[in-house]
């Protein structure tokens, strides 16, 4: 083949590939952007049943959480129209709802029974009383602990422990010779990782991100007390390199029997009692702790929810899917096929009234943890924002990621707690001034 022919063929191929894309089109299909979490993957497996019932085909775009967040944010702010349903959380929903970027879910069918959604979830996914996203599953955070190690230490975990008891239990269970850490907690930078955990820890010590006039509060003694407590606890009884541990790293440690306690998302309960866990038979649950004398606990509130971006051409079909995926019938479908422990938790009141589900060991503690969370009053003193482990303003994600990076640097010993707090105060103050809150 001559060079001329090669070049001609190459040009033709390149133009053909360019042109072929213009011919691509959509039929009666909805496109859903979601995360790769266990419950979501399970839902994808049952999608064929939805298609059989309705004739609506479903295309999934599954992405890593941070990529998903960036992807759907870009699309919704530019009215890109790439997705008919987006999987979003409690942070985005009220902000996007207020901007009219989402279709209000105020006309769901009577059979759907919108009043059955747990009040905490419904409030967190609404703006001005209008629901903008339907919770697929919800979570809070709680203490997961090794019952065998607690027994051996001669301690009994109360259902509502204090941080002081947690420290005492961590000291008793810590056994470096056998590679057991007294406690495993998130330290990884990122507003949704270590940032979320230290924010709720702060709440349980009476700390807050901002006062009622949006002044940053990292220079207040409550933050110093909370952060020093956390760092001392983890330095004394936590795993090596905890500054880079997130949910998955701690799950891995706990499942291998290397943690006496782990305080994290309630959805982890099904993992630590599942087939991949070496300690599945000896796990107990308790409410997230509080500092002695402080009423608020270190438990958050989160939901992965399905929302419809305004401007979609397939609003009716998208609503049909949301009604199906977040319905009581869907929960019954999963329960019938995979057992009650595997149904999406934390979204519906009726689930917790089901006798079979009440027998699941972590069910009641999950509900209690969710009910104990109040996004409107996350900490002791009043705040101008909504949100427990986050502040529901657009500037929060970037600001909190920076702040959590400073905290992680303190966990890693690269700076002191005081230095980290000083920098956090400067970051938050600068962002709020630039954004015009003050």
């Amino acid at each position, binding site marked *: 083949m001559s060079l001329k022919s090669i070049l001609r063929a190459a040009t033709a191929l*390149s133009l053909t590939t360019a042109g072929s*894309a213009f011919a691509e089109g959509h039929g009666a299909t909805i496109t859903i952007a979601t995360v790769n979490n266990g419950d979501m993957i399970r839902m994808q497996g049952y999608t064929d049943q939805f298609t059989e019932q309705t004739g609506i085909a479903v295309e999934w*775009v599954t992405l890593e959480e*941070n990529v998903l967040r960036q992807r759907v944010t870009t699309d919704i702010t530019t009215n890109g129209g790439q997705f008919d349903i987006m999987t979003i959380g409690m942070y985005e929903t009220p902000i996007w709802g207020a901007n009219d970027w989402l279709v209000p879910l105020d006309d769901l069918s009577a059979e759907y029974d919108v009043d059955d959604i747990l009040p905490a979830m419904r409030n967190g996914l609404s703006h001005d009383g209008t629901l903008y996203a339907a919770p697929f599953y919800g979570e809070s955070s709680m203490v997961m602990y090794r019952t065998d190690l607690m027994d051996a230490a001669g301690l009994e975990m109360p259902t509502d422990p204090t941080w002081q008891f947690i420290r005492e239990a961590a000291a008793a269970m810590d056994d470096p010779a056998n590679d057991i850490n007294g406690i495993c907690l998130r330290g990884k930078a990122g507003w949704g990782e270590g940032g979320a955990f230290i924010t709720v820890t702060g709440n349980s010590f009476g700390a807050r991100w901002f006062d009622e006039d949006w002044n940053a509060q990292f220079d207040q003694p409550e933050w110093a007390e909370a952060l020093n407590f956390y760092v001392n606890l983890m330095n004394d009884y936590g795993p090596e390199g905890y500054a880079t541990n997130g949910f998955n790293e701690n799950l*891995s440690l706990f*499942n291998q029997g*290397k943690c006496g306690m782990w305080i994290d998302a309630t959805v982890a309960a099904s993992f630590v009692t599942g087939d991949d866990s070496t300690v599945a038979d000896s796990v107990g649950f308790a409410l997230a702790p509080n500092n002695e004398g402080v009423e608020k606990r270190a438990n958050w509130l989160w939901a992965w929810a399905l929302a419809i971006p305004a401007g979609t051409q397939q609003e009716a079909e998208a609503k049909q899917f949301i009604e199906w995926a977040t319905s009581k019938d869907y929960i019954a479908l999963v329960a019938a096929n995979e057992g009650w422990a595997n149904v999406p938790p934390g979204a519906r009141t009726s689930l917790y009234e089901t006798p079979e589900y009440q027998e699941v060991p972590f069910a009641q503690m999950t509900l209690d943890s969710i009910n104990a969370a109040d996004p409107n009053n996350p900490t002791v003193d009043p705040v101008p924002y909504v949100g427990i482990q986050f502040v529901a303003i657009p500037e929060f994600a970037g600001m909190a990621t920076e702040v959590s990076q400073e905290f992680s640097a303190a966990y890693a010993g690269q700076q002191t707690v005081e230095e980290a707090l000083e920098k956090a105060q400067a970051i938050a103050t600068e962002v709020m001034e630039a954004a015009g809150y003050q």
Partner: protein
Amino acid sequence: MARAVTPRRKLINTGFAWAIGLLIFFPILWTILTSFKTEAQAIASPPIFLNFDWTLENYGVVMERSNYARFLWNSIIIAGGSTILGLIIAVPAAWSMAFVPSRRTKDILLWMLSTKMLPAVGVLYPIYLLFIQMGLLDSRAGLVIVMMLINLPIIIWMLYTYFREIPVEILEAARMDGATLREEVLYILTPMAIPGIASTMLLNFILAWNEAFWTLNLTAVDAAPLTAFIASYSSPEGLFFAKLSAASTMAIAPILILGWFSQKQLVRGLTFGAVK
């Protein structure tokens, strides 16, 4: 005079080269090994190297859950299309800069490179809005154009370097024999620069294959390539490392095989003109 290499020194050098090679390859090897483990074995501490029950289950799950062929085809079209389109533009551009330079040639070369200095996210919104206006979102055509534009400075720079090694007298001789400009580029310059062009093509194909920012942000269903395929197995809440490794292995396998078969050409092209 060349320095004599003793057998002992040769052995040490070879051992050192192998050690460096294995060190660089180890993450890929570990990914491949992990893809054959169960999820529990994948997170075992201390890590299990070879002593585990090999399973193909993860590949089965990945194949069942995802339309691998569609992702693969999109990767081939995007990487191949952008490389070919880039070459069609870059060969004449590099020719003019190498053989008929102007006062501004050096500035143009530097300016082209400067477009690579801006973080991609800085132009995400403008590009995204342009794509909406032009109907190019989630289309292979759009990705071919973007990948070509991203890699064009590198292609031109590489070709420019290769062309500079070709004696201009040969081209002048062709002209004296009556060759037109098109004939000069097609029949004289290009055959002489084949090793350079081939290595440029390969390198750009690999760069386009692995590019993850634009391919994740500008695609959804129809044009999503293998980078999106891998991203769909990364989970913030759940340990799916074995499945993620299986997906990664399936995504890098084609490019690894291509690289393996073309390594001779690639090395020859990259060292072209290194010794005068």
